[in-house]
């Protein structure tokens, strides 16, 4: 089953360096936390935020099942850290990795905006369909004030009559769905709501297509990301839908972006924390995110070149990305932040330096 392969693959990539929650948070796309960094560190960026509607309970059930099957085992003595068993490795090789990661999933440039964009798109479709069928009242798919407000603005700004609106949005969606794989297009459209035609949930789609819900989620995300990429690159071709997308290109989360702005003004971490009324550890999280995503960010204020070298060497020697193990090996003055920065910098710059064996697996 797809879900088995997916979780086996992720456990393989994480190599027992994080608890199983790390994988859950990755799939959920937990913001401003370890997860963003993990997605770079373990080379699983496409999966970040790929199953944002996943609930913990069903994920745990899945992991327990893999455990019962004997495909995963505890990594050393630490609780909730898992690695693949030999049988698990074998199971994973039986699965075609190209099927595991549909192409569209790798378009992660707009990952921070995709949740919002999708809500806005669904609400636009629902609203315009209701207008087209002269339905004076309907229960909107979401009540999030920021979403309803921006859809309202978008529709007003279009200054088109209802037929034109329907025709425009239909045309844009049609053009966007046409070139993408049929399964993905169907899965995408099945979730859209119109007049007297409420969209299906992924679990309903899974039931009616016989796919497993994880595969449905991933295929849907692949479709969504293809569409967002296409729209971002050809805004003029899709004027209505482009208007639903966030305009800035940065992949930084909103909150990390704000921290970045203050750091550039010359504030220290403590000052930023104070100014933003956030904890220093949150600001540190932002700093790591900035290091990962902003190529021209200079982190030498926080980490000297020698120190960075030393950390990277240690990490390679130990063949781990577990902060605690690395810190134990080094002298006490080195902070966790410095270790995280060093690891972050080196995933970006020298890609393969830290990965070695992982790269090989994914080429299998």
């Amino acid at each position, binding site marked *: 089953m797809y879900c088995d392969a997916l979780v086996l693959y992720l456990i393989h990539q994480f190599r027992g360096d994080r608890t199983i929650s790390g994988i859950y948070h990755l799939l959920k796309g937990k913001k401003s936390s370890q997860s963003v960094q993990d997605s770079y560190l373990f080379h699983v960026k496409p999966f970040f935020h790929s199953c944002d509607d996943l609930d913990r309970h069903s994920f745990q059930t899945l992991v327990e099942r893999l455990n019962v099957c004997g495909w995963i085992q505890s990594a050393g003595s630490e609780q909730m850290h898992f690695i693949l068993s030999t049988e698990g490795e074998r199971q994973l090789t039986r699965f075609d990795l190209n099927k595991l990661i549909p192409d569209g999933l790798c378009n992660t440039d707009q990952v921070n905006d995709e949740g919002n964009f999708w809500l806005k798109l669904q609400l636009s479709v629902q609203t315009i369909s209701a207008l087209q069928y002269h339905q*004076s009242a309907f*229960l909107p798919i979401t009540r999030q004030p920021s979403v309803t407000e921006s859809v309202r603005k978008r529709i007003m700004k279009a200054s088109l009559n209802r037929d034109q609106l329907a025709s425009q949005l239909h045309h844009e969606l*049609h053009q966007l769905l046409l070139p993408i794989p049929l399964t993905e297009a169907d899965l995408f459209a099945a979730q859209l*709501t119109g007049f*007297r035609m409420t969209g299906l949930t992924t679990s309903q789609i899974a039931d009616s297509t016989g796919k497993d819900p994880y595969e449905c989620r991933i295929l849907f995300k692949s479709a969504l990301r293809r569409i967002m990429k296409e729209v971002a690159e050809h805004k003029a071709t899709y004027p209505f839908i482009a208007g639903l997308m966030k305009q800035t290109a940065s992949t930084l989360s909103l909150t990390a972006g704000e921290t970045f702005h203050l750091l550039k003004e010359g504030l220290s971490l403590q000052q930023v924390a104070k100014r933003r009324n956030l904890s220093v550890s949150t600001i540190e999280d932002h700093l790591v995110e900035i290091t990962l995503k902003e190529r021209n960010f200079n982190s030498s204020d926080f980490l000297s070149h020698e120190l960075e070298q030393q950390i990277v060497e240690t990490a390679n020697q130990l063949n781990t990305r577990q902060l605690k193990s690395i810190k134990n090996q080094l002298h006490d003055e080195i902070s966790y932040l410095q270790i995280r920065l060093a690891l972050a910098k080196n995933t970006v710059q020298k890609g393969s330096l830290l990965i070695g064996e992982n790269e090989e697996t994914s080429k299998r």
Partner: protein
Amino acid sequence: MVRMKKHRRDEWIHRAQTVLKEKFGHDQFRCGQQEIILDVLEGKDVFAMLPTGGGKSLCYQIPGYLLNGTVLIVSPLLSLMEDQVNALRSIGETNVRALNGLIHPHERSRVLAHLSELRFLFISPEMLRGSTIRAALAKITISLFVIDEAHCVSQWGHDFRPDYLHLAEIRTQFGHPPCLAVTATADERVREDIVRSLELHHVSQTLMSVDRANIALVVQRVATNDEKVDHLCHLLENTRLPGIIYCASRDWTERLADYVRRKLGLRVAYYHGGMDPVDRRKIQNQFLDSQLDLLCCTNAFGMGINKPDIRLIVHFHFPATMNAYLQEIGRASRDGKPGLAVVYYAKQDEQYPEGFIDGNFPDDEILHRSLSELDQGLLTIGNKEQFVSSLLERGVSESAARFIYEKVQNKPIHCTYLSIFDQCKAVINKRKAIQLQDLSVMRNYLTSTNCRRAFYLKVYHEHQPAQKPHNCCDRCGIEFSDFRQTESTNKNDTERHGQILDWKKRLQIIFKEGERADAPIRNKRV
């Protein structure tokens, strides 16, 4: 003088009936509605108790079209508010708005800028505490001050809202407009609280029976879960739908939905509070749009649901109170046609409500720890959402977290948080005792050997109607064949287009457009 009064009353009746016909498309008022509406139109303070599904909205909607000014409706539940706004919009009313915590600041400004043009304004009690909003409302003419779910004002009630305690004072600030307090269920104690706390002097009271005569009541005793599921499947195959199955846990809603779909091929979905909000909304809309035959859900479903043709309500697990039970079965057959309510009772199900009651309150350890952490500054109150979510992270249940919030917020300034520990315990014990008492009433209902209807009417101190309905309850005997589905009612294929998976077809229907010519495919796309 008396004649003139009578004359005026007749005229109001005539005008109210005209609005009923023209705006709402009904020929006749339902039982009790006319008296309530007339009292309201004559400017009296009114307390009305109407059963769930008894048409209480109409009691303020009609006056909205006959009185000058804005009808202000205080409503504690967002979903209910949304449904009420929607109901008015769908009859073409455009001057209706809502103010609640979910409103975007821009929308709030728009509403405040056009207050005087509104015919109906729904507002949450929290919003009413804001001074800007109150000042703006004080400037317009409020024709009627409606308090929905009025039982929230009473500490004896099942969902007490501290914000409701300020409503009398707020009403004075608005120039003391006439007040209409409505609720579905309130026993004598709660009724007294409502009248006193809202300061309804010389109030005109209309108390309608909680009884819904068109709903037949069945209690089915079973020994095991397997037996229960078998019974249920048999029932579903032979009973008119759509229906709702209430379960005590999220897990059960998913398992049952899956089983019933496989076994009977019905269009069934599950619904519970652990789902993604958008998915929850989709399932709700599918049910309303008749895309589903059956919904397996927890009690998270149903508030603000207005679907008149639900024919079957099953309780796979019984609820904790008679009140909740009546409210949940009250969702059946609001159109007045026959409906069926079946509750399964297995001895082992008693764990669920007892567990709920315990889960409603913090245990000693959690309470003690939270209060100490507040004293030490490890936990801060901030606003309600922040406080509740930081307790949730500490593993406290949501209702327990809300309880703690309610208590610590009212702590006297000069003492420590820990000093209110004993007082909190006392309140917990008191409220728990009430809930356990409610539970035992429910249990007695399930084990009663007499007429079910007679039983609950007695609970609400009501007399039995002179004549029993034809299909009353399992004790009086009912004809199951009266609830049998006919071929045309279920499994109807024309309603299935929600299931269309072909994307081109789906888009055509959504946008009500013809087929689109396929443009050349961009070849650069991978």
